C-alpha cells in the first residue's frame, strides 16, 4: 500500500506547501521601516498620474514598497472591486473608487476602513466641502479621501474652428457659446452651423454629452432620497430629445468611446468639440500620445460650458477592511490626496484637484498646457469648478450611465434608431438591468 499512497501524499504535500508559501503574510500593524518592510498594493484606473508619486513616497518612507495596479477604465475597476469584495480578499490596500459607483460602495461601506480612525478629522478642511461629504457614509464614517473632481470645460479644436470660420481664440470661443449664460441650445445651434459648413461631426459620440447633461442637473438619475427618477422625468427626457435631435442631424462622429480609433480620432479632425471634465484632459493626453499626436492637432480648452457649471466624475482613495496594513495604507492614501501631491498629480495626469489649497495653487500658477495650445487648463478648471455642487449618486448610477444610456445612445449614433427609439430602448434597458435585475 505504501507505493499506492505515495503519489497522493506527494500531491497533498505539494499543494499544502504551495498554499502555505503563498498564504503567509503578516497581519502586523507596526509602522514600516527597513527592518519591517511593508508592501502596499494600490489599484487605480484610467490616467491617474501616480507613478512618480509612488517613487517619491518609497524614497521618503524606507521599508515601504508600493505595488501599483492600474485598470483601464472606471467601469472595469468597479467590476474588479466588487468581485474582490465578494471574494472576501484580493482588494488592494488602497483602492481608487470612482464617483459614479461610490453609491454602490456606500451600500457596503462597512467593508472599508473608517479613515477617522487614522486622522481624517484633522485634514478634512483640506477638501472642498462637498467632496469630503461624498466620501462620508450615512453613519459618519469617512471611507474615501477625494483625489480629483471633474469640473467641466469645453475642449475644442481651434484649427477646425478656424477652418469653419468660427473664432478660435479661447476667450472668443467662450463668448461664442454664451459665456456665463452658455446653453445647450446654443451649443447645438453652432454645431449645426459647423456641420452644414464642413460636413464634419461636432462631438465624438452622444454618450459623453449625455453624461455631462445629467451630471449638470440638480438631481440626476436618483432623487436625493434615493428613488429612481427617470421614466417620468419630463425635464430629463426633453434634454435627451435635444441631444437626439443634434445627433440625428449628423453632429455625432459615432466614435467608440474610450477607444477613438486608438486615439487617432483626436488627430484627424473627426470632431471639433469634446466635453471635458478635468480628468478627461488626461484621457485625451493619453489617447493622443498613443496615436503619436501632439499640440499640432489643434486642441484647446475654453472656460465655458453649455448649461453652466457641471461636475462629472472624480475619484476617492479608500482602504478596505481586508488590508493587512491599514495604518500604512491610510497614511499613503492621505499623503497621495494631500494638496501638495494633488498639484503634482494634476501636472502628471492633467486632472483637477479636490483640495482647496491645490485648486488655488493651480489657479494662481495658471501654467500653460502645451497639448491644449498652452491654455492655462488648471486655472480654467478652477474657474469651471465655481458653482459646482455634489449631485446625489444612487447605487446603480454608473450602471445606468454605462449599461443603460450608453448603449441606447450608441444605437442613436449608429443611426439604427431615432431619438424616441433610443429613449425607449434606454427605458427598456433600465427595466431589465436595474429595476428588475
Amino acid at each position, binding site marked *: *500500500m505504501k*507505493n*499506492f499512497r505515495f*503519489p*497522493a501524499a*506527494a*500531491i497533498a504535500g*505539494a*499543494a499544502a506547501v*504551495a*498554499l502555505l508559501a*503563498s*498564504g503567509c503574510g503578516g497581519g502586523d500593524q507596526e509602522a514600516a521601516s527597513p527592518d519591517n518592510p511593508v508592501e502596499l*498594493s494600490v*489599484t487605480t484606473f484610467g490616467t491617474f498620474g501616480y507613478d512618480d508619486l509612488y517613487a517619491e513616497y518609497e524614497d521618503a518612507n524606507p521599508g515601504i514598497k508600493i*505595488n501599483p*495596479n*492600474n*485598470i*483601464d*477604465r472606471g467601469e*472595469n475597476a468597479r467590476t474588479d472591486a466588487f*468581485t*474582490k469584495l*465578494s*471574494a*472576501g*480578499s*484580493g482588494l*488592494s490596500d488602497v483602492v481608487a473608487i470612482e464617483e459614479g459607483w461610490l453609491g454602490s460602495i456606500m451600500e457596503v461601506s462597512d467593508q472599508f476602513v473608517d479613515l477617522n480612525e487614522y486622522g481624517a478629522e484633522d485634514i478634512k478642511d483640506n477638501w472642498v466641502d462637498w467632496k469630503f461629504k461624498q466620501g462620508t457614509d450615512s453613519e459618519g464614517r469617512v471611507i474615501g479621501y477625494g483625489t480629483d473632481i471633474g469640473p467641466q470645460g469645453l475642449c475644442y479644436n481651434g484649427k477646425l474652428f478656424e477652418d469653419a470660420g468660427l473664432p478660435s481664440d479661447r476667450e472668443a470661443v467662450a463668448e461664442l457659446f454664451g459665456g456665463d449664460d452658455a446653453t445647450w441650445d446654443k451649443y447645438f445651434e453652432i454645431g449645426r452651423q459647423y456641420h452644414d459648413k464642413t460636413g464634419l461631426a461636432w462631438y465624438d459620440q452622444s454618450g459623453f454629452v449625455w453624461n455631462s447633461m445629467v451630471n449638470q442637473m440638480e438631481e440626476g438619475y436618483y432623487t436625493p432620497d434615493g428613488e429612481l427618477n427617470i421614466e417620468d422625468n419630463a425635464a430629463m427626457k426633453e434634454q435627451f430629445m435635444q441631444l437626439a435631435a443634434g445627433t440625428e442631424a449628423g453632429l455625432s462622429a459615432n466614435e467608440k468611446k474610450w477607444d477613438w480609433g*486608438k*486615439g*487617432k480620432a483626436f488627430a484627424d479632425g473627426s470632431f471639433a468639440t469634446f466635453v471635458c471634465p478635468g480628468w478627461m484632459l488626461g484621457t485625451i493626453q*493619453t*489617447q493622443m*500620445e*498613443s*496615436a*503619436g499626436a501632439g499640440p499640432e492637432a489643434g486642441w484647446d480648452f475654453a472656460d465655458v460650458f453649455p448649461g453652466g457649471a457641471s461636475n462629472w466624475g472624480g475619484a476617492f482613495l479608500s482602504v478596505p477592511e481586508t488590508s493587512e496594513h491599514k495604518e500604512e495604507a491610510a497614511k499613503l492614501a492621505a499623503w497621495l490626496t494631500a494638496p501638495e501631491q494633488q498639484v503634482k498629480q494634476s501636472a502628471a495626469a492633467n486632472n483637477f484637484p479636490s483640495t482647496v489649497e491645490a485648486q488655488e495653487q493651480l489657479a494662481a500658477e495658471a501654467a500653460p498646457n502645451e497639448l491644449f495650445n498652452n491654455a492655462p487648463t488648471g486655472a480654467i478648471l478652477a474657474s469651471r469648478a465655481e458653482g459646482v455642487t455634489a449631485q446625489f449618486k444612487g447605487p446603480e448610477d454608473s450602471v445606468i450611465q454605462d449599461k443603460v444610456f450608453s448603449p441606447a445612445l450608441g444605437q442613436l449614433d449608429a443611426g439604427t434608431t431615432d431619438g424616441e427609439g433610443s429613449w425607449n430602448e434606454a427605458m427598456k434597458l433600465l427595466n431589465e438591468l436595474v429595476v428588475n435585475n
Partner: protein
Amino acid sequence: MSLLEKGTARKDSPVSGRPARRPLRQRIFGNGLKPGYLTYGLLLAFFLGSSYPLWWSVVVGSRTNEALGLDWPPLLPGGNFWNNVSEVFDTIPFWTALWNSILISTIITVSVVTFSTLAGYAFAKLRFRGNTVLMVAVVATMAIPTQLGIIPLFMVMRTLGWTGEIGAVIIPSLVTAFGVFFMRQYLVDVIPDELIESARMDGANMIRTFWHVALPAAKPAMAILSLFTFMMAWTDFLWPLLVLTAGNPTLQTALSQLSSARYVDYSVVLTGAVLATIPLLVLFAAAGKQLISGIMQGAVKG
C-alpha cells in the same frame, strides 16, 4: 483500433532507384509516391499562415505603437523590444505569474494523471460490482464544463478564505472525467488479461500488480494525458480571473491585466503576449513530437 497497432500506420514507401528527372507535371503535382512542389508550396503557406500572427506580434512588440498604424506592416523587428519588456515587468509581476502557472499546471497534471491511471486501470482490468454503471457515469460527466460550476465554487472558496491563493485554482481541477475515460480506453487493450492473471498467480497483491504490470504499460498514455492536462491547466482563464488577484496571478490573468493597465500601449501589450507565449514555445520545441503523436494517437483512440 488500438494505440499499439502501429502497423496500420502507413510505412513510408521507400523510394529506390530514383529516376534521373521526373516530368514537370510530376514535379509540381507529384505522383503517387512522391509529393510535388505544389504540396510543399501549400505546406509553406500553412506554415506562414500559422506563424504570421506570432511573428507580427514580435515585430510590433519590438517597436512602438506607430507600427500598428502603418499601411503595410513592417516585416522585421525594431529596436524597442527590451524597452517594452521592461515596461511589461514594471506593470505585472511576470515571474510570480510564470511560477504560479508552472506550479498550478504541474500539480494539476500530477493529480489528474495519478488518479486517472488508478481509476482507469480499475475500470479497464478489474472486476467489481458496479464497474459498468460507474464507468457510464464517468462518460456522462465528461460533457460537464467546469465553467458551469463557477458560482458555487466561488462561494466555497470565499467561505474557505482561499480566494487569492493558487490553491483555489488548483483544487477544482484535480480530477477530470476525460482523464479516467482516456486511461481506461488505453489500458483495456494494452494490458493482456493473462499478464494480470500470471502476476496474481505469482502471489502478487493488487497494488503490486498495478505497480509492476499496469503502470509500466500505462506510461505512454500517461505522458499524453500529462501533456493535455498541462495545456488545459495552463490556458485556463475564467476561473483564475475570478479567484486570483493582481499581485498573485497566473500568466493568463497577468496578460489580461497587462492589456488593461497599458490599454493604450499596444506594442507593450503585444510584447507581453510574446513573453507569455515563450514558455509554451519552449515546451513545444522540446516535446512537440510527443504532443503531435499524443494528439494523433488520442484521436484514433477517442
